[in-house]
């Protein structure tokens, strides 16, 4: 039975765990649901893209270069005569996996540091926060350039560099949430019971931060995708001829001025579409997470 207090807003928030994932998505509104669909499609492509490609994405055929949409080639050919649609489908994999790695890496690192800083507080928190502040000063792309210089160009180096660059963002947001949970009486009750700090953090503090973590990860996926596309565009990420949306923008760029904008723009649209979807969904989830914490 819902508790008697209706609250000033007249609305009672329902717990996420009750609603399930579908209910959660439904509550993000039309925009949120549309974004979720786009993301789902992109994920499917990332997994099955190469299998779905109607033509070979890697086989050049210079005689067909820059030809527009004809017959079974819905998006025409790129600068090397490869089917653009096939290349987009195949490129989904590297375009999505990169951000995924970045998000995973930065979230894990950031969450661990945030929870430790939020739990222990005091001098350890000061040191961690100072370290994060220093890392904040490095823009992601700069770190990626450094990584490419040291380790050679490629997706791995770029992803690692971005993980490190994003980590302080994550840690800052999560640290606030961790500290708030830490200050809650139920945590004190568990301490008085004699539970260890680690078990309280893992079993109680982190689960209560999950809505925020999920929201943050979703938003960051979008940022990571843009940054990785830019890095690949610069030639420091995924190397041509491997299919990748960022690379496709770059390698087909000469076509824009020559009157063949489609290959480059198509890749751009894919990136923008997926990024917007992640941003929109992420922000909706973020709002939900904030509201749930009131």
């Amino acid at each position: 039975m819902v508790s008697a207090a209706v609250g000033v807003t007249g609305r009672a928030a329902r717990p996420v765990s009750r609603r399930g994932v579908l209910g959660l998505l439904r509550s993000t509104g039309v925009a949120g649901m549309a974004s979720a669909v786009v993301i789902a499609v992109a994920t499917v492509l990332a997994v099955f893209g190469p299998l779905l490609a109607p033509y070979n994405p890697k086989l050049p055929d210079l005689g067909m270069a820059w030809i527009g949409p004809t017959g079974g080639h819905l998006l025409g050919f790129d600068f090397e005569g490869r089917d653009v649609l096939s290349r987009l489908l195949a490129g989904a994999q590297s375009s999505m996996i990169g951000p995924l790695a970045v998000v995973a890496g930065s979230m894990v690192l950031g969450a661990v540091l945030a929870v430790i800083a939020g739990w222990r507080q005091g001098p350890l928190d000061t040191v961690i926060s100072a370290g994060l502040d220093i890392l904040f000063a490095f823009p992601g792309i700069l770190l990626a350039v450094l990584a490419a210089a040291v380790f050679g160009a490629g997706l791995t180096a770029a992803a690692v560099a971005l993980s490190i660059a994003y980590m302080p963002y994550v840690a800052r947001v999560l640290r606030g949430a961790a500290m708030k949970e830490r200050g809650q009486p139920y945590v004190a009750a568990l301490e008085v019971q004699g539970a260890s700090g680690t078990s309280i953090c893992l079993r109680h503090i982190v689960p209560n931060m999950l809505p925020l973590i999920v929201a943050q990860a979703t938003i960051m996926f979008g940022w990571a995708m843009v940054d990785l596309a830019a890095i690949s565009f610069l030639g420091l990420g995924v190397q041509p001829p491997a299919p990748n949306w960022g690379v496709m923008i770059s390698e087909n760029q000469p076509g824009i001025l020559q009157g063949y904008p489609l290959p480059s723009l198509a890749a751009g649209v894919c990136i923008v579409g997926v990024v917007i979807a992640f941003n929109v969904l992420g922000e909706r989830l973020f709002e939900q997470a904030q509201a749930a914490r009131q």
Partner: protein
Amino acid sequence: MTGRKGRGPGAGQGDATAAASRGPLLAVDGLTVQLPVEGEHRVVLRDVSLEIRQGEAVGLVGESGSGKSMTARAIDRLLPRGAQVQGQIRFDGRDVSELSGGQLRSYRNRVAMIFQDPRAHVNPVRRIGDFMTEALRTNLGVPAAEAQRKAADILGQVGIEDGRRRLRQYPHELSGGMLQRVMIAAALLTQPALVLADEPTTALDVTTQAEVMAILDELRRGYGLGMLFITHDLELAAAICDRTIVMYAGQVVEVRESALLHSDPLHPYTAALAAARPDIEQRASRLRAIPGRPLSAFEAPAGQCAFAPRCPHALAPCLAAVPELTELDGGLSRCVRVTELRGELEAADA
């Protein structure tokens, strides 16, 4: 249906006799409010009627879900968006729901609200002085210097010395008790005719509460203001209010002269509420707890007395229909058995 003619004892000032002939300052008539919750509409106030005369202090007592805060918000037009309101609220004869724009602002100058948690209702990045004088300067066009002088003056009246210095301070520099005094002072600054005090002392220490109550009482009488004092504490309301209204599950269940509330309550809920409190003068072997828990209007069973499931005196007629408010001995009661139970309900220990 409404029977509003409670004979509240006058405030003792000349105002009251003149006021009695002028009609009530505030008249709430058949107020029913529904709020949208998760797609459905939930009733939170059911047919609430009350009256406050010029210069009269009326207490509004209830537990969670009683609707006491919601009533105050309805009066001040602070209901959440989507709320459906039926019934009428008339202030000085005018229908409050028809006011808008400048009229609404001037209405809010005449009806001041004091909230439970002062910190939640004050902007932490503005100085006390700015906050206090805002209504004076923007709505009433009072020049800044004069507004500051008045503010410092009234701070003195609520017991804050060195008003000028305080006006330059920020809210976080004041304790909860001091901030609440500031809120009271700010509320009185626009010389309202009616003060709505929503649990103004609940968040305060008991000694601070006593002090703040005394200030509120003194100033109210001094300025001849009407007051609706909302609280969960029956004795607190009785201390400074001439009449007390008891609410349960979104309805008015009793209206009574405060002095008679303990010795001669007219509704089983009032008696039970008073009896459930531990006595500071002696330990009871067992407190007389009311079984169950206080319900909101939408949770209470429909078509019958809302309190019946928890009432030790409930009989078949109590479940047959929603009881009307009956007048008895100058008070009102929403109990069908009020005449039979008279005298058996007193709150003193058995």
